[in-house]
């Protein structure tokens, strides 16, 4: 048990801290689209410094960083008030998946442009009829010679409005057991037959999209990891998604907590014992999440693999985030409910936290099943 940074970690931290000081991207634009491109430019800048994908092997432009070093990276970003770079579906999901399952040609073609932000990626897993149930994917890819012809629909594809490529899970065989008939593709988003439709959320914004496929043709060379092997490839993607989650969750929550705390202190609201007690409970929950993320990184490193414990962090995050957003809107004052207030936005946005990226119900199934080893329902 030793929570001090190693010499390497310290050296990196000092380097990166100095680098950020010289390259800080400043304040975010207020327009949603401009903000996205600003974060994409920030990815390019990080890439010039060699910081775009810390955890990638150096042969692909990364630093072969340990998960712990990656956590240091994110902590420094947060400390400097710098944004999380855009295109994380590329750097955290598409990249590692292609490294593990892709052909040499695919690696050469796709990996490097991700870090230069020349390729923006989105993820086409969820469907209206499937939701949390990947095995129920219905979007069908029919083989025709050297091509597959895709018809169907995806939902909840974030950043599809910017994306050049999509990680697409389809069904290619309806005659075998559900999760065996899946195939995983890289889809060029400029292919004819793709319709992108923004999905308006209860916040009024559209972070997500629906994608419709009408006879979209994909070359067979764009299959990742063999026809019929889509389930396993998709699991790789999801595991990488979960492995990046811990540090990111902790930072989001801590930053928000700090904003709430500053407001409460500035307005003397912590003099109210009930407010004080609830706030401090939320601080403890936030710290517990940060520490649990670090602990899981240590354990994953020792074990050499990422496990299902990311589900635990996600559950902690969504629970604490929802509580914090409710607490804030009840506590900060009567302006909180006004349309333009940041408090209102966080409060509304927090309602998605128990749904997006695996509903809390599904995650508790995973914890029960894979962590506790309880017998499965069906």
């Amino acid at each position, binding site marked *: 048990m030793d929570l001090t940074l190693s010499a390497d970690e310290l050296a990196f931290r000092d380097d990166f801290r100095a680098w950020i000081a010289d390259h800080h991207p400043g304040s975010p634009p207020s327009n949603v689209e401009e903000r996205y491109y600003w974060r994409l430019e920030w990815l390019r800048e990080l890439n010039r410094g060699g910081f775009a994908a810390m955890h990638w092997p150096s042969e692909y432009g990364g630093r072969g960083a340990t998960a712990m070093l990656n956590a240091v990276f994110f902590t420094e970003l947060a400390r400097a008030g710098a944004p999380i770079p855009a295109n994380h579906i590329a750097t955290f999901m598409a990249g590692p998946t292609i490294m593990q399952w892709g052909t040499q040609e695919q690696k050469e073609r796709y990996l490097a442009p991700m870090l230069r932000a020349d390729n923006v990626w989105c993820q086409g897993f969820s469907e209206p009829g499937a*939701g*949390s149930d990947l095995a129920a994917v219905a979007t069908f890819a029919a083989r025709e010679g050297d091509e597959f012809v895709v018809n169907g629909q995806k939902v909840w594809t974030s950043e599809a409005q910017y994306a050049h490529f999509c990680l697409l899970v389809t069904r290619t065989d309806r005659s075998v057991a559900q999760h065996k008939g899946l195939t995983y593709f890289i889809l060029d988003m400029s292919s004819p037959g793709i319709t992108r439709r923004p999905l308006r*959320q*209860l916040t009024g914004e559209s972070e997500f999209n629906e994608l419709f496929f009408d006879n979209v043709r994909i070359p067979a060379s764009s299959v990742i990891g063999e026809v019929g092997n889509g389930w396993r490839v998709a699991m790789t993607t999801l595991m990488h998604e979960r492995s990046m989650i811990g540090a990111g969750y902790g930072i989001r929550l801590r930053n928000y907590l700090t904003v709430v705390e500053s407001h409460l202190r500035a307005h003397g609201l912590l003099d109210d014992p009930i407010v004080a007690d609830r706030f401090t409970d939320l601080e403890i929950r936030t710290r517990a999440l940060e520490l649990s993320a670090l602990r899981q990184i240590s354990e994953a490193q020792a074990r050499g693999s990422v496990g299902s414990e990311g589900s635990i962090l996600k559950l902690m995050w969504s629970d604490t985030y929802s509580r914090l957003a409710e607490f804030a809107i009840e506590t900060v004052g*009567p302006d909180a*409910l006004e349309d333009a207030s940041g408090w*209102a936005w966080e409060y509304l946005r927090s*309602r998605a936290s128990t*749904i997006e990226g695996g509903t809390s119900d599904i995650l*508790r199934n995973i914890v029960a099943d894979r962590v506790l080893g309880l017998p499965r329902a069906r």
Partner: protein
Amino acid sequence: MRFMLSDEQSAIQDMAREVLAAESTFDRVRSAGEERQYDSELWALQRSMGWPGVGVPQRWGGQGLGLVELSVIAEECGYACSSTPLLGTILAATSLVSAASSEQCERYLPSLAAGEVRGAVALTADSTPVPDAGEAGLIVVLEGSGGRVSLQPAQPVETIDPTLRYGRVVDPSAGEPLNQSPIAYDSTLVVVSAHQLGLAQRALDLSVAYTSVREQFGVPVATFQAVSHRLAQAHVDLTAARSLVYHAAWAVQVGDSEASASAARAKAWLAEASRTVTGSAIHAHGGIGFTWEANLHWLFKRATMLGPYLGGARQHRSRLLDMLGTAQTTSHETDHS
């Protein structure tokens, strides 16, 4: 003793639900919300049916019905999440009925009862956005057991609930003083609680319907206890809510000694339960629940707005504790002979 709606009251409920199901669909609510304008057609219909004057005595142009009937109407308007200035107008009319002099009643009630003037009710010491105050022609500002009636326009406020026009009182000291009447405040608490109950009941009913047909892993999602037990708990919480709201409506109406305590309980409970149940309905719907088109958000947003309005859960618990302290021996009698 009969602790349920009478046949007449049930008939009012059925009629209101039927009318609103046809004339206050979520399509209508959504377009009102998106345009940030009341549904003027629905408001005209509600006026033609005499709803603004349901609780106003007949001599001032109303229907002269009691707080239970008023609560039924308020609940159904919550159930439909309808976008009209009815809530503020019945709140204003109800508080005037008990706190205005007969001269003031004569002056203000007929136009409120007819819906010619739109009303709202605010508290002096509170800057929580007031529903329907944004376009109200008359605002009752309550303070303690007294208050004032003011014709000064409020400052409009755009809130997370664009289906009602919220506002803040500019000068709480403006207007004519009203008589002392604790019932004015208690009545408004009951009506708002009933509206919140309707919001939550609708969210639960939508969730029951959706999860019964939506399939995941080959079965309706409602067959998973994670879903069904959450909805069952919501039903339990709304059973408590309904008992508290309608007991309060009856108690305030008949002047029962428990009236103020009962109104405080109802508002304290609904301030939390209405938001919790509507929020939990969003979760029960999964990803769809978070979309603009799912319509659940209108219920959730209004439930959130009405939580702190006229005092939130903590304030009413604190008021209740004071009342329990002074009336400790009589507060839980169920018989009032």
